[in-house]
């Protein structure tokens, strides 16, 4: 019987759960697949409805979590096997070789500068805008701020064809190409699953030309482009010519509320984040024209409806109720025509410089396997399913395993944080109940 808690996923939801449990005195292990914690929120520019700088409010939490005396953060790690039950889960974790000694690395970036592949690998942390090296720090505010070597790209690790310039450049001798994956087996009393989501790939929705037309991008790409720490330093640029877009169309519900590809649900946040995106474009340059094509405006949270109103009144956002039929491209200017229907007037088109697709939130591809490893249920879309949606929303179908955040359904930051806290409380509750203690800390 142990009271230690395992949290799978180091996004804002997992971080909140870790902090709450750590503060209560529980030993917490956090397993994060990526080289840095922070999840999706760490990559956003601003958050609605307050337009706070996302990383500014998250970074302190990331650092607190990482340095918390009761929280042990494992990055580049995945849960491979789970057995046992509440109070005595036996968990096997694979801590993948980082090829950089976390204790020695100071995050000085010398290895990145030395890497022969510098500038040659599309940067997935910037949604493919910009490039990175094989030895790199994922993003500026990464926690831990420690380099990682990409084993799939590194010339030495893949072909032994590199003079290991990075190792030479590292003054601390932190780079270790002999590092091996580490298998850790440990007992935990409870598990919280908070692995988050990914964005739907809109290239299958061929009528919108994503992947075919340079200036059709999806919302996460937009976030990186408008982000001051992103690949363009916060300057919105068109992929085709690097020019600043002056007319931007945002198309809502791309892949969401759509029976064709198995995502019939509303993603609940896109009306808000598109408004935020449009506001940001306007804040950067107030001659930007923003058009949001929506199916229904769903602004149900505190301050949300007011936010939309502000968008329309103060930022000049034009809200158009239509799902465009298709997007066509001017082969010369690479401008885009958004074709939509105005009831009573017929079909018309709007010429814009850039189109941003507000793509659906879909379960993380690792969720399926994780559900099998944990032996818990997912719903028809692949989101983790609560044992009782109404009365036990944080409990998975297995006792002692809790689910929280956007791996359970699409949700915004507020809800993810709320759920992280709620899952932490549920874990604390069952563990103290299981050990007969009244309370801890």
């Amino acid at each position: 019987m142990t009271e230690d808690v395992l949290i799978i996923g180091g996004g804002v939801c997992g971080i909140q759960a870790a902090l709450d449990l750590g503060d209560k005195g529980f030993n917490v292990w956090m397993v994060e697949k990526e080289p840095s914690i922070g999840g999706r929120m760490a990559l956003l520019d601003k958050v609605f409805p307050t337009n706070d700088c996302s990383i500014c409010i998250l970074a302190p939490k990331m650092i607190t979590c990482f340095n918390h005396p009761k929280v042990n953060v494992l990055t580049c790690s995945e849960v491979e096997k789970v057995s046992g039950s509440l109070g005595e889960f036996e968990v096997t974790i694979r801590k993948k070789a980082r090829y950089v000694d976390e204790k020695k690395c100071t995050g000085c970036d010398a290895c990145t500068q030395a890497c022969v592949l510098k500038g040659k690998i599309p940067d997935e942390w910037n949604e493919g805008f910009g490039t990175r090296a094989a030895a790199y720090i994922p993003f500026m505010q990464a926690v831990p701020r420690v380099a990682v070597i990409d084993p799939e790209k590194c010339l030495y690790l893949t072909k032994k064809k590199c003079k290991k310039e990075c190792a030479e450049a590292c003054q601390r001798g932190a780079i270790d190409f002999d590092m091996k994956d580490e298998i850790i087996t440990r007992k935990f009393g409870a598990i919280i699953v908070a692995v988050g989501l990914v964005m739907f790939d809109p290239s299958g929705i061929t009528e919108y030309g994503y992947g075919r037309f340079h200036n059709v991008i999806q919302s996460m790409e937009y976030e990186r482009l408008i982000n001051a720490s992103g690949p363009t330093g916060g300057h919105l640029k068109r992929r085709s010519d690097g020019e600043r877009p002056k007319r931007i169309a945002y198309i809502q519900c791309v892949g969401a509320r759509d029976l064709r590809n198995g995502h019939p649900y509303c993603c609940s946040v896109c009306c808000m984040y598109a408004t935020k995106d449009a506001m940001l474009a306007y804040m950067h340059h107030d001659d930007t024209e923003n058009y949001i094509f929506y199916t229904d405006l769903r602004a149900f949270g505190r301050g949300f409806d007011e936010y939309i109103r502000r968008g329309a009144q103060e930022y000049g956002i034009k809200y158009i109720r239509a799902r465009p039929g298709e997007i066509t491209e001017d082969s010369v200017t690479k401008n885009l025509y958004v074709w939509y229907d105005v009831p009573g007037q017929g079909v018309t088109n709007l010429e814009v410089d850039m189109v941003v697709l507000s793509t659906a939130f879909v379960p993380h591809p690792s969720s399926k396997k994780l559900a099998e490893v944990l032996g818990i249920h997912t719903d028809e879309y692949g989101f983790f399913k609560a044992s009782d949606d109404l009365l036990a929303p944080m409990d998975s179908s297995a006792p002692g395993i809790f689910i929280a955040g956007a791996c359970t359904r699409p949700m915004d930051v507020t809800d993810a944080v709320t759920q992280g806290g709620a899952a932490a409380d549920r874990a604390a509750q069952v563990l103290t109940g299981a050990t007969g203690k009244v309370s801890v800390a």
Partner: protein
Amino acid sequence: MADGNFEPRIIAFSCNWCAYAGADFAGVSRIQYPPNVKILRVMCSGRVEPSFILRAFEKGADGVIVGGCHEADCHYISGNLRAKERVEATQQILEMLGLGSERLRIKWINANEGEALAREIEELTVKLKQIGPNPLSTGTREDTVAALEFEDILNATDARLCVECGKCTASCPVSRRNPDFSPRLTVEMALENLESEVETSPAIWECLTCGICEERCPYNVRFSDFIKDTRVEARSLGRKGNPVQAGAIFSWMRMMASNGLKQRKLGWLEDGLQIKHEAESDDDIMFFVGCLPYYEVSHRQIMPGSVQIARDSVAILNSMGITPVLLPDERCCGHDMLYSGNPSVFEALAIKTAEAIRKANVKRVVLSCPEGYLTMKHHYPQVLDGWDVEVMHITELLSEGIDSGRLTLNKEISAKITYQDPCRLGRRLGIYQAPRKVLSAIPGIEMVEMNHYGPDAICSGVSSWVNCGNVSRSIQIERLREAKSTGASMLVTSCPKCLIHFRCALSGKTGTDRDEIQIETRDITGLVREALI
């Protein structure tokens, strides 16, 4: 041949200035002629469309005479020559239908040639008495299939899921040109229970049922089916849109549902093509020719290349070691009847076709026409019990042939081509790869895609032979422009109807710079056959 009591019924379309005046002259001169004729006055024999003639036969006429002015006498310069050309073409149709071309005559009769008119009527009456009555069952066909309840259509097509987002209308090539047609507003009206407004709206005949709206509809509202089913009730209310060629095509399709008919439609076969009339084993394949020989005549002015598709298909099958089954009395598949709101005739045709296929012991059917393919694959099982025939499009068979090595394409055809996805083959049945694979297997062919391809392909502008007008033409011209702008020298399709529509567009006034749209149009079978040698 016929029993002695048979009195033929003859319709004589007579031009106002000559033939009708000739009939008057015969009357006042007391010239005797058989009472079997009913004379219909038209202003000019050039007004007599094939649809008039076919309609007369469909309604039970045993013979038809078209009477006009002597050549060079036409009061409208050349209406009579036009009539002659049309009559000759219609004779070919009658010949294929098995009615025989001799039932239809054209005669130049002057206003003072009452005697000649009388002789003509007499001659035809005698001839008809020899060859017997029109074999078609006569009279108006009763509708045996009732229209679905409007409620049921809404439920069956998931129209109730519509959130009125307008993506359908914004995707529709017709709506873009005709603001009176909007899938969104049509469904909205339907959901507001404005049943009769929907059914009597001319707009529902504008729909191409091309399926681009339902391909893109996030809620899977099946608008093509909605239109197909709504047109049934609309037809019973007397609406029918604007049938192409004034309904001549529908006429012969309806005739094919008749019991008495015995067609002779294999006259196009050329020497060297191997066919048989009955399957000898379960592996034998029937090639369903469909309406191709008829289109060759009905669309003769635009060189439709329809019969060539049939010849090429048989030749390709032969080269693969297949001797296909072809039936001389094969009926229309019923597609156009079904989609123009006439399920009764569709069902009659489906039953007849299935019967003929069963009689010939055929278990597998291959078609060059995607519409026939959709009909047999998707719609026959809806109306026929025990329909277990394997149906495939010729491009699927060819694609298999390439894999198995049965089809070898050796001759180089150096051309840059682009491909038109037919809506039935692509969006409705999901076959995008097979034709591309076949085309790519031809040595020397370079494939380029248009902006709209695969599921986004734009329809060739007309469907089920209704409402071919300015909107259709505009869609076709735009599509041709798109094809041309790829830099390709050839637009290839795998649908005989697409080919007709594009060739039709190119044959007329285009209202645009011809250089921007002029492109060679071909059916995929033609290219494949060429590459065989």
